[in-house]
């Protein structure tokens, strides 16, 4: 490195081999072969793409399917029935016994009643965030928001989604994505925080799919090429790109350049890979299976979740709806206040309960029959429960002080209820659990130490979960 170049025009590069035109052709072809041959992801994924300090999780749960019930389902009308409470509390719906003695469910969940022996209920969930966005952030990250703000802003100072933590500390190294979220970005007025990696960095954001899995043309957009482009042309482009990169030698000495190049390699491999494409290919499922899950966006989303965990995805966020909803029998989430002369019970009887009763038992049975339930933790929860006292609209309002979360598989007990709510489902009576504890529980089941430290944008250390694992639910 002795000769310094003062201001001058570029020197001809001494080490340049001269190439005859025919050779170029052969060179290009050789490169195409290399790309084609590297087709399967695991072979080409460089160490660089893996998170530093990754510890392969060795908990009972290999994957989590997080079914987010946006809007806030009523605990008193689903899994924490209070048949003996006053009429203004218990509501118009009756309970029916389930296969587990002492664990009745709503009369409109008869299929759920048959699979309660596969689940753990936590009936003593508690927090104090009354707004959808702040409560949802809490539910999706396990960290209490700084303020209970109806339009809590989605800033990088907030904590990352569970799946992003998993992607940071226990990522897939076989080429499948670690964290997939779909079929919406949820929002209540503004984007609901808690759906992405925030200060962990964009590399840990979910693979986000905002397409409807119930659409006959559903496919992963990343794996679809513009009309003018085919894989052959793409490979030509990559080969030409590599020739340029070879000249500038940046890849020889810049880790950043190598990192970006590794992403090209990975992206092209994904485009070539059958495995990723197959995981998202719902048409490979028999019609009978698709029917069983329900021909709805949510039903097919749950089927997709099963395919994804089957192919190794570690964390799947399925959002029941894009909005809090509550005033429609055909769309939206669980936020049934009875506003604008709507009423809660006709709506949940027509939409939310039937969809839940068709999809959730199907998913649990399907996972169980395939031997996947023991290694897949299914979490069914919303941001809060609903007021024990029926309101003037014969509906229920927000109630974070007490609600129920349903867990299944992945190392939790079967046919078990943890914690209890009081007589009217107003407050936890025993064994209160906060979202912080639920977060610690999920991470523990995934084999990730809940005390693992992350640093926020100010470099302040925090544990990934601020609570303690609820060991009482462990199988």
């Amino acid at each position, binding site marked *: *490195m002795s000769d*310094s*170049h003062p*201001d001058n*025009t*570029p*020197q001809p*590069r001494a080490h340049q081999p*001269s*190439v*005859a*035109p025919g050779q*170029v*052709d052969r*060179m*290009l072809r050789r490169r195409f072969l290399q790309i084609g041959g590297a087709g399967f992801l695991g072979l080409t994924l460089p160490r660089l793409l893996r998170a530093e300090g990754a510890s392969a999780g060795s908990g009972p749960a290999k994957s989590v399917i997080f079914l987010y019930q946006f809007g806030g389902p009523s605990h008193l009308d689903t899994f924490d029935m209070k048949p003996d409470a006053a009429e203004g509390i218990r509501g118009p719906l009756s309970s029916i016994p389930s296969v587990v003695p002492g664990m009745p469910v709503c009369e409109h969940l008869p299929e759920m009643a048959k699979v309660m022996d596969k689940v753990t209920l936590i009936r003593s969930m508690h927090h104090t965030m009354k707004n959808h966005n702040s409560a949802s952030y809490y539910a999706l990250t396990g960290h209490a928001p700084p303020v209970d*703000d109806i339009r809590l*802003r*989605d*800033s*990088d*100072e907030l904590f990352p989604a569970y799946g992003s933590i998993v992607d940071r500390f226990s990522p897939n190294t076989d080429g499948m994505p670690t964290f997939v979220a779909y079929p919406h970005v949820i*929002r209540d*007025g*503004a984007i609901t925080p808690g759906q992405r990696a925030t200060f962990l*960095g*964009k*590399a840990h954001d979910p693979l986000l799919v905002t397409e409807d899995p119930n659409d006959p043309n559903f496919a992963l957009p*990343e794996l679809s090429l*513009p009309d*003018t*482009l085919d894989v052959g*042309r*793409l490979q030509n*482009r*990559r080969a*030409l790109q590599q*020739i*340029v*990169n070879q000249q*500038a*030698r*940046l*890849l020889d*000495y*810049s880790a*950043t*350049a190598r990192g*970006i*190049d590794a*992403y*090209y390699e*990975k*992206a092209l491999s994904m*485009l070539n890979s059958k495995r990723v494409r197959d995981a998202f290919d719902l048409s490979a499922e028999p019609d009978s299976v698709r029917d069983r899950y329900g021909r709805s966006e949510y039903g097919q989303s749950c089927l997709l979740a099963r395919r994804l965990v089957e192919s190794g995805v570690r964390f799947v966020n399925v959002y029941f709806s894009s909005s809090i909803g509550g005033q429609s029998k055909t769309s939206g989430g669980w936020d049934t206040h009875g506003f604008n002369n709507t009423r809660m019970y006709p709506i949940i009887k027509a939409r939310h309960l039937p969809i839940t009763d068709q999809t959730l038992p199907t998913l649990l049975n399907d996972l169980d029959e395939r031997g996947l339930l023991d290694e897949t933790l299914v979490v069914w929860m919303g941001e809060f429960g609903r007021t024990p006292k029926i309101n003037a609209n014969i509906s229920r309002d927000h109630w974070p002080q007490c609600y129920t979360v349903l867990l299944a598989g992945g190392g939790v007990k079967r046919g078990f209820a943890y914690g209890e709510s009081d007589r009217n489902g107003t407050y936890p009576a025993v064994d209160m659990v906060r979202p912080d504890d639920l977060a610690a529980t999920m991470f523990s089941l995934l084999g990730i130490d809940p005390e693992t430290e992350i640093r926020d*944008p*100010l*470099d302040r*250390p925090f*544990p990934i979960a601020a609570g303690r694992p609820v060991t009482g639910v462990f199988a």
Partner: protein
Amino acid sequence: MPRNDPTFDVTPQRLCDMFPPSASRAVSHVPFLLAVLAILCAPTPVTAGGRPVSFRTDVMAVLSTAGCNQGTCHGNANGKGGFKLSLRGDDPDFDFTALARDLSARRVNPAQPADSLLLLKPTMQLAHEGGRRFEFDSLEYRILRDWIAGGMRDDRDTAPSVTSLQVTPQELIVNGIDEPVPLRVEATFSDGSTRDVTSLAVFEPSEPIVDINRDGIVSAERYGEVTIAVRYLNQRFPVRLAYIPDRPDYVWEGPDERNEVDRLVFARLKSLKITPSPVCDDTVFVRRAYLDLLGHPPTGEEARRFVEDPSPSKRAALVEELLQRPGFAEFQAIRWADLLRIEEKTLDRKGVENFHGWVRQQMARNRPMDEFARELIAARGSTYASPPANYYRAMRDPLMRAESTAQVFLGLRLQCAKCHNHPFDRWTQDDYYGWASVFAGVDYKILENRRRDRNDKHEFVGEQIVWIDPARRVKDPRTGKDAPARFLDEAPLADGEDPLLALADWVTRPDNPYFARLMVNRVWHQLFGRGLVQPIDDFRMTNPPVHPELLDWLAEDFVANGYDLRHTIRTIMNSAVYQLSSEPNDTNAGDETHASRAVVRRLDAEQLLDAIAQAIGAPVEFNGYPPGTRATQIAGVHAIRPRYKRPTPGDEFLMLFGKPPRLQSCDCERSNEPTLAQTFELISGPMVDRLLTRPDNTLGRWLSDGRGNEEIVRDLYWTVLSRPPSKMEEDAALGYLQQSDNRRAACEDLLWSLLNAAEFSLRR
């Protein structure tokens, strides 16, 4: 001797010493009758040195050296296992109560000291989740045992406080990693005494390349540089060690020094036995200069003209020319818009345009940076008519204003001190709330608010008047009383004084140790991709600058030249150091901090998108902006919020590639981190594909011009990469074009490959 003498004799504490140390915190003393009784009955214990064991200076130190009071252990806000200590020994009164009084003192047993939980647990004689913290009969053990045996006295009123620490060596360059380095820590106390407290000090390295034992012996595991934060009680001292490979044959070889920047940097490189990379060639320089000053690369024409210009002074001339272009002010305005939270939801569309326009104008007019800062800090009035008032419109509460102003104009992150004294610097909660009180008087007269979402308290549409009530203060949550307003050097705000005018004076005083250093640190970061203090807004005693003399010199030069941003940029860009190639040699391959070569980094989102649009010769659309607007000219974040209109592919590209939403006053909010999703956008996303296939783009024009393949290949290289193709590249490209049966498609493929080349998206 394998070790060099330190070749730089800075005082790392200097920055912090420019403000006098804080007064000790006033915390009410609660007398404990039982403790007094215990003192009266107990024999006086002694340490190994013959001195009585002191709760304040010995026991408190042990709680830190043993790690008991770390954030992950009992220092946690919720404690651990029902036992809570103050974080890092922040609050000795609290800790005394926790140890000697809580739960009727079941943690300590003065009758049978050895049976105290405080000794049984950390020695693992009883199960302890935190593991073994020290050995039976170790120094830690004996201090705690003697303190318990002596009746658990709190010597609050008699113990001297520690006033300073001195650690030797304070800086050292070490050849090789075999030789251990002993650190010696000496404390000076308020009674004038000094004592070796090495075994009672905590050593925290910034990089995991060294191991430091309880006796302060440092062993390196690999080469590199490390700052060791040494802490004893509430005093800190940073020690900097550099472990370099022994290079007996090292001879300095480097470009001639052109200015003081070179002199200072090269002196440091010599001491580290690092050879800088050579000065880069013209094709690299021209691209670098355009990207750094204007935010986009040169056109093919501009690049060629510069490279072919025979003038020996053409680099300096180019820097001068670019500094005067409007693009310079636009690109600078982006950085400030990020920090000043210029976004539409809170400022509204008109506010964003006015505020951004004002910032850009200040940059274009070369407004001295102290005046620029004064206008923002002391701003008030209509957010439409007096644009700097938007600085406060964006920050609706005093704590946010206090934290952000410290970060944006002083490079201090005070946030830690909100809940407890800063664990890595000297800022106390008194400092925090006193500083916050300065900002308490800002209020708003909301003339109208035509917001679309009535639930959204962050949204404002309409004019506001920012006004100041000088009498207001924030409540200190610890006392429930107003915190007296004061600056960070503890100078109080006079009653009736306009707090923001006084603050503006205080921040921009020439002897303020932070403001000018932060400003030049930001410039260094813009030009080198890394600050001399890094993170750039985290000036902290335990985070010293990588080259203190250089930072000092740049700051002094900046002040002496009237806080002239262009002056500092020009000075740096005309140095040989700035112009070094990014290609490493054997001695500097591992160096990314000392500017011995350019560090390769990804372009900002706006730079990349403008570069793509310019290279393809087709405009990108942004919601709410006229066609032809460049990404670097966008005033805010979303002129039309995504909720109301789907973002264009251009808008989405910017977010995907890390343009910040501007919700934080931190440079860290902008991300240049590559991701897989970005790569998919370039490979199969709609943005690039639509531009590439537009019939009227550069390729379309050239093809209809009748340009031949050779011309097209050469022009593409100049246009996209600012350089000619090598022979091999030319042959490959021509071969590809010739063998294709669709010439247009083949040209698109070639153009794509250049746009996706590493040297296109990376600044080198």
